[in-house]
């Protein structure tokens, strides 16, 4: 099976540890992952902010770059949602072909394609999980991430209150409506801190950048970490905070 990693621009640029974790995790599960170097961005920010034309160009690039693989894996519910839900219409609008290659969010790929909920991970920390909106509502990942986390040795999982409420990131919403975004963030952080967890995890680094940035500003002592890094962590090679 030829699996391509779509790192996403946010993870590639700001969170290389997450993408490295995906590579390590999938290799451990017997997949050889390729990283097509022509990839850049799925166009979500352009599309969601009202710029469908450049988004359509980026969608067309995406379809070309990932053509020929058996599957694409992205460590992001919202980018995978963009590709699956929005790209088809955009490609049609510019009369460009779809690649026909399925794009999976990481936890979907692990559970549905590889058939694994126990990925042999070890992570001796107290964790809470935020289901990001697009993974929840666009993709419908359901409890796959929780099933994966529950199988991680050493991990203590505390359920997040009001988990399905948006954290307030919303791409450019976070700056265009900064006050409302922060009000939503405050409630999300309150719920996170109520769990007493050391680590807040999710399947989207963009949302984690927002919630984690708020927690950091408050010196809350809880840090945000992508679920890939938890699942990649093992007894032999445990996760260590790098930054």
């Amino acid at each position, binding site marked *: 099976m030829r699996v391509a990693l779509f790192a996403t*621009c946010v993870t*590639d*640029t*700001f*969170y*290389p*540890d997450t*993408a*490295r974790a995906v590579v390590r995790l999938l290799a451990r599960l017997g997949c050889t992952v390729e*990283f097509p*170097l*022509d990839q*850049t*961005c799925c*166009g979500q*920010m*352009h*599309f*969601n*902010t*009202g*710029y*469908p034309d*450049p988004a359509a*160009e*980026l969608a067309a*690039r995406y379809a070309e770059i990932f053509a020929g693989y058996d599957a694409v894996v992205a460590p992001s519910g919202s980018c995978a949602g963009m590709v699956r839900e929005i790209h088809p219409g955009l490609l049609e609008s510019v009369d460009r072909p779809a690649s026909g290659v399925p794009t999976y969010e990481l936890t979907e790929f692990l559970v549905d394609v590889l058939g694994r909920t126990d990925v042999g991970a070890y992570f001796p920390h107290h964790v809470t999980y935020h289901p990001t*909106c*697009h993974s*929840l*509502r*666009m993709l419908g990942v359901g409890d796959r991430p929780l099933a994966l986390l529950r199988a991680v040795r050493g991990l203590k999982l505390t359920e997040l209150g009001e988990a399905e*409420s*948006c954290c*307030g*990131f*919303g*791409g*450019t*919403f*976070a*700056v*265009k*409506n*900064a*006050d*409302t*975004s*922060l*009000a*939503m*963030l405050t409630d999300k952080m309150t719920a996170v801190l109520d769990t007493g967890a050391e680590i807040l995890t999710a399947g989207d680094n963009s949302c984690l*950048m*927002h919630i*984690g*940035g*708020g927690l*950091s*500003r408050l010196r809350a002592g809880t840090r945000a970490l992508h679920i890939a890094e938890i699942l990649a962590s093992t007894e032999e090679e445990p996760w260590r905070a790098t*930054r």
Partner: protein
Amino acid sequence: MARNPVTWLGTPAFPRAAAAALADPQLRANLRNATHTIRGKRARVVAELDDWERLRVAGAAIKDDVLADLGGYLRQLEAAVVERGGVVHWATDAAEANRIVLELVRAKGADEVVKVKSMATAEIGLNEALAEGGVRAVETDLAELIVQLGHDRPSHILVPAIHRNRAEIREIFRREMPDAPADLADEPVALAEAARRHLRRKFLSAKVAISGANFAVADTGTIVVLESEGNGRMCLTLPETLITVMGIEKLVPRWSDLEVFLQLLPRSSTAERMNPYTSAWTGVTPGDGPREFHLVLLDNGRTATLADEVGRQALRCIRCSACLNVCPVYERTGGQAYGSVYPGPIGAILAPQLAGDPHDPQVASLPYASSLCGACYEVCPVRINIPEVLTHLRAEVVHAKGKRTPEAIGMAALAWILREPYRYEAAQKAGSLARFLARDGKISRLPGPGAKWTAGRDAPVPPAESFRAWWKRTHA
């Protein structure tokens, strides 16, 4: 053409209006309590029906059928209403609808009318227009009465006084309701009783009533109003003349279609299996109810909305307000920040389309008043894909603003970078220099547009090496 009053003149753009609302602790607490309570109740009553998803699909399909031949169904409705003794009027815009209603009221020699809660009449500013013409309109829905007596604006489609607490309501009643008891308590029962006594006199003396419509059945000419308090039933039966103002999209083709909507609407709006009062009337019935019935069919931007292939799904809306109750933005800002009688997610797509002016900065701000979390789409009983329409309307706003705005220039530059991997890589390398802004592993202050980010959150410290740089070094 006159300005469409669907958005309120003088309201600041959403971000500013929201900032003011966010700072109001009473508002925040009321909204939190109200939205969370109704959310839970709705989820429970919806879960009772194992065919809920099929009902949603049916609701959307029936409405789409209406929209596909709106002209035909409207003519069918008109013929049925006329045949049963009603009079049908057509109004292109708010001003025309208001003029028609005022003339009808004047012809009856009335200087006061009683009103059933109605979004269409609120949309067109009918009360204000009647007041200018010397006619006092009395809202008889309790929450609408509170808003009216408080010289206030509504903040929710279903519960327009959601932003008021009982102490405030008592003050409003004491100040504005001449027949309120001097020792009025702030207990809900006492407040409701004061309103009941006040309104009872109005019902008995009014010659003309004005209503909206939840549904109009094209093949029978029947108009249907759903309500909880019974005030509507009073208005619809006691006065001699009834005037109904109805948006042209409120149609269903057949009487039997109501089976779907009378399940969808109460469960979605008040989280009830069935609403307490459902009134249905067809033209006039001698010796029973109003002797004269006028139906004003209101366009006010709907035909233009219908012409938009993506945006037209907003015309399926049955005004249940389920989307408001689950919206994380609405929950925090309340309805007045949207500057329209239609707030929340549906307002953010309906008000701009009805207003039809993406150059108006307040109107242009509405499609951006959402994090696109999708909670609204999930609960919408007629499956309006609100996030889809929001991004569609954002594109219209961007188009209207042109290519010279700082945002458009920035977006074009970013697209130019993202089109070529080598440019993207160069930008990553340049951007990673921002790591030198970090103090103690944090970036707490960014310049330019980034300042809005760092106002409340630290920014990620860019790594010395991007993932692709690492991959190239280790794999390529």
